Structure formats: C-alpha cells, structure tokens
C-alpha cells in the first residue's frame, strides 16, 4: 500500500484511513480487554453464589452480594490484617515521601559537596539486586532490634524499598524549578524549610503524586520482607495472608477470597483514577526525563 498514491486520491484515502483506524482501535481494545479481564473475573467471583463459583461460567446464575459483609463478620483475622496493611503502608509512604522530598531538594537546590557521590550510590542501588541479597542482613538487624514478628517493625525496611527511586524522582522534579526562584526566596529572608514548603513544593505537586502512589503500591503489596520477618498470621499484612490462603470451603471459599481481594485492590485503583492527570504529568517530569 503506497501512501503517496493514496494522498493523490482524497476520497479513497479517507476510506483507507478509516479502515486502518478501525483495525488499530480493534487491536488496542483487545489489549485493554486482556488488561481488564482478570480483574473483571475476580469482581464477578466475589458476587457469585457458592455453587456458581465452582461452575466456571463468567456470568453467575445466582448472585450473592452478601459475601462482602460475610468476610468481615466471619474471618476473624481480616480486620487485623487490613489494619496492619493500612498503618504500615500509610507510615511507610509518609516517611519515604518526606525523606525523599528533603533529600531531593537538598541535592538540587542546596548543592552540598559530595552530593554527586550520593546520587551515584542511589543509582547503583537501583541496578544491584539489593532487596534480595540484603534480606540476610536485614533479618539480622531486625532480630537485633527485637522486631521479628512485630508488624510495625516492617516500616523500617519498607522505607528503604523505594527510597532511592523516590529521591531520584524528586530530584528531577525539583530540577524543573529554576534556581532563581530559590535564590529570590533566600534574598527575601526565607529559610530553607520555608522555601521548600511554601514555594518549591507546590511547584512539584505532580512528582509528589508519583512518589505517593509508587510507595503506596510497593508497601501495600510487599511480600518478601513481610513473610520473612513475621511468623503469625495476625502480624502480617492482608495481601501476604491472601497469598497463603488456599481456595476451598468455609471462610476461604472462592467468593470470599475474591471479596477480600476486591477490598484490598480497589482503594489503590480508585486513588489512581482520581489522581491520574497529576500522575501522568509527574511521570513525564520525574521518571521519563530523569
């Protein structure tokens, strides 16, 4: 198909263009379907009656919306595991973000001697399989601090999971803020904390959204550290318990499992959908350019 020939005949080129566009959208939508299908399957599973769950049809013969209430009433460790997930993830996200903001700002706008070495070390840690190899020593540290099987103790290693990438993202976002702005604030007598908080941070909103989401997602779904550093089911986070649950009868029947899954997975997806505009902008500023 020669495009030069097509552009010579406008009425046929319109038709050909349309045809190409239909095929294009068709292929794109197949991909979209592949992305959404597994989630749709779990959603349907969570509102199926139990006999339908074993039948395998996508659309149930009989709906049962009671599963969601049932799992909260009958699975006694569920509220504990959910609470574990919530506070561990919340505090991890909060601390990592604060540390990354401070460090990223210092690296760009305060330019300390030796900053280059820090950036290099952060970059190397991204390429080295740090998470896997360091687990031996992290276990030792946690055991020394008496934090084995303590849920809140997970926060300490969790903070470092994304610390390097968060600092690098904030660094490239802060690089978009001109030095003149910071200098002007300094001339006006603002200290570094006030300059950062009142002037620079509002300009880095998109990048903040990115590191919030990245840290939330990582901490919420962390498996290796949680399953290694805790032993009791009540000390673990919800996804880790879910990963160990075998589908079957009783409290872990398939619709129940699916309902728990939906409860754990939707907050992140909803939060992302609302923040997506800022997230994409931040992604372009922070990740792609950096």
């Amino acid at each position, binding site marked *: 198909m020669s*495009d*030069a020939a097509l552009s010579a005949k406008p009425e046929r080129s319109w038709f050909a263009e349309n045809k190409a*566009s239909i095929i*294009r*959208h068709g292929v794109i939508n197949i*991909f*979209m379907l*592949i*992305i*959404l*299908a*597994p989630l749709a*399957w*779990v959603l349907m*599973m969570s509102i199926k009656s139990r006999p339908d*769950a*074993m039948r*395998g049809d996508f659309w149930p013969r009989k709906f049962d919306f009671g599963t969601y209430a049932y799992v909260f009433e009958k699975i006694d460790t569920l509220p504990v595991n959910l609470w574990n997930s919530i506070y561990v993830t919340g505090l991890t996200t909060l*601390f990592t973000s*604060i*540390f990354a903001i401070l460090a990223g700002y*210092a690296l760009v706008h*305060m330019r300390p001697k030796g900053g280059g070495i*820090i950036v290099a*070390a952060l970059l190397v840690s991204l*390429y*080295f*399989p*740090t*998470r*896997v*190899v*360091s687990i*031996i*020593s992290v*276990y*030792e*540290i946690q055991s020394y601090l008496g934090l084995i099987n303590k849920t809140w103790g997970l926060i*300490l*290693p969790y*903070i470092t999971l994304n*610390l390097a990438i968060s600092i690098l993202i904030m660094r490239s976002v802060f690089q978009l803020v*001109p*030095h003149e702005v910071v*200098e002007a604030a300094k001339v006006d007598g603002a200290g570094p904390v006030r300059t950062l908080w009142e002037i620079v941070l509002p300009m880095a909103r998109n990048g903040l959204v990115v590191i919030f989401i990245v840290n939330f*997602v*990582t901490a919420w*779904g962390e*498996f*290796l550290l949680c*399953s*290694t550093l805790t032993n009791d089911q009540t000390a673990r986070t919800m*996804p880790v318990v879910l*990963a160990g649950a075998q589908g079957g009868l009783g409290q872990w029947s398939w619709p129940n*499992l699916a309902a728990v899954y939906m409860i754990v*997975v939707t907050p*992140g997806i909803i939060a*992302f959908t609302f923040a*997506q505009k800022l997230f994409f902008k931040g*992604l372009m500023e922070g990740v792609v350019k950096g």
Partner: protein
Amino acid sequence: MVETTASDRMTTSLAPQSRLAERLAALRNTMSAWWFLLPAIVFFVGYQVYPIFRVLWISFTDYEFLSSDPAQFVGFANYITALNDPLMWASLWRAALFTLMFLPGTIILPLLLAILIDKVTNAKLATFYRVVLLIPAVIPSTLVFVLWKWMYNYQVGPINHFLVDVTGLFTLQNAPQWLGGTPLTLPAIAVMEWWWGLGYHTIFFLAGLAAIPKDLPEAARIDGASEWKIFWHITRPALAPIMMILVVLRFGSAMAVIDEYLIFGGFNRDTPTYTWTIFMYDQAFKLGLWRQGFAAAIGMIGALGMMVVMVILIRIFRPKG
C-alpha cells in the same frame, strides 16, 4: 542549566559581602543541606548499603544464624563450594531461562501497543487508554501474583475453564498444570509479568514517541517511505535510549525474581523455579541451622553475575554516537 549557573555567579559576585561572611554562609548552607539529607542517608545506609557489605562479609565466614558458635573466617571456601555445586549453575541457568522468556514479550508488546496508541487522535479515548494501561501498574505486586494464581488455578481458574469446558481442547484429566513447579511454571510467570508490565512500559514508549517531531514521519511519508522504513529509521533510533533503560532494568528485575517463585514454586530443588534467589533463601532461612555464610556467597555470585551481564547489555544497547 548553563544559564542558571551564570546568573548564580552574578548574584554572588554582586552581593556586597566580605569573603568570610560568604564562606560562613556557604558553610551554613552545606550544613543545612546535610541536615536535609540525614534521614534519607540514615535509612539508605542502614537498610541498603550496610546490609550489602554485611552480606559480603558473611559470605567469607561459616556463619550460621541459629548456631551458637561464633562465625569463623573461611576465605573463599563458600564460593568454591557454591561454584562446585551443580545446583548453583542449574539455578543460575533457570533464572536466565526465565529472563529469556520474559524480556522479549515485555519490550515488544508494549512497543507495538505504544505505536498504535500514539496514532489515536481522539483526546478522550487516548486518556481512557492510558488510564486502563496503568491499572496493572498500580496493583501491588503480591495482589498481581494472587490474581494470576487464581487465573492459572486448576479447578476454578478461567484459563483452564476455557481450555476444558469452553473449547474442549483438554479434559479435566490432562488439563495443563500451570503452577507449582511444573515445566509450565516459568512461561506462566513470564506471561503474568508481561501483563503486569504491559501498561507501564507502553506509557514509557509513548513518552518517547511524543518527543518525535510529528512533521518528521509526515515528511518521510510524503517522500514515499514505507511504514516499516519510518519505524526503522525514525521511531527506533528515537526510542533507543528508553529501550536500553527498559532492557537493563527488566533484565535486572527478571534475574532477581524471588516473590513469584516463593508463591508459585516452593523449595523443591528439581523444579524450574528453584533459581539462585530461592537457593539463597532456602539456605539462609530454611535448611539446617540457617547456613547464611553459604547463602551469602550464593547471593553474591548471583548478583555479580547479573551485574556483569548488565554492563555488557549497556554496552550493546548504548545508542551510537
């Protein structure tokens, strides 16, 4: 950047300050910079830098975590034992095999999809596609694994339901056993990872495509260049830097996969999911008195092997010129 530095120099030289005051101000600035960096450094050093060096040290000792005997320095003994163990090589090969299955799909599929989506002109549709694309990226890792554990489930999983009940290609007796250390486990995990990374990588490529000036392919098209030629001579070079980052980063994550193998595989030494990471974990936290000296050596061999290949990859894929 050049401009800002120049103007900075101007402001400092114009400021009516003595050199001592200037130096004091600079010192104060450096001091507060380090205060800003301190929390990040404490955690980064405490939980990443120190552990790596600690593991490196442990790898030269006969350290056993549950043993009360003090660890002895044994030099390269652990490394020699590991390198003489066929399981070390088998486990490295398994990780490499998984990487070979995983890498092509996780680069080519998003590239294809990005080229298609880049041509979508309807702004609302384009936004919708992007939002759907990133949904898997905001599903936390363990929940992706749980999701696909169910997809591949032998009894209720939709994949086997499709193969047995819908198409009748298999019966319940010979339906494929996807997970649990069967030969299908590695390809099954690779497909799951494609799904997981599809959207995120597509967004990466889309950002690269957006940077290509639109009139460049237009001009080529008017000159009669084929779509393939446009891709090869304009799109491909423009995406080369992104491609390199993705190949190197994903090579790294694929070689060091561990959570997936823990959830889908287990600790049978003969199964394809028993890679160097599981070998290390097994020795460190499961077997005997937790032979962490030996485990540390396994981890270091795996990590260094990976790093060597990564440097080679960077050299191959580095954009020319």
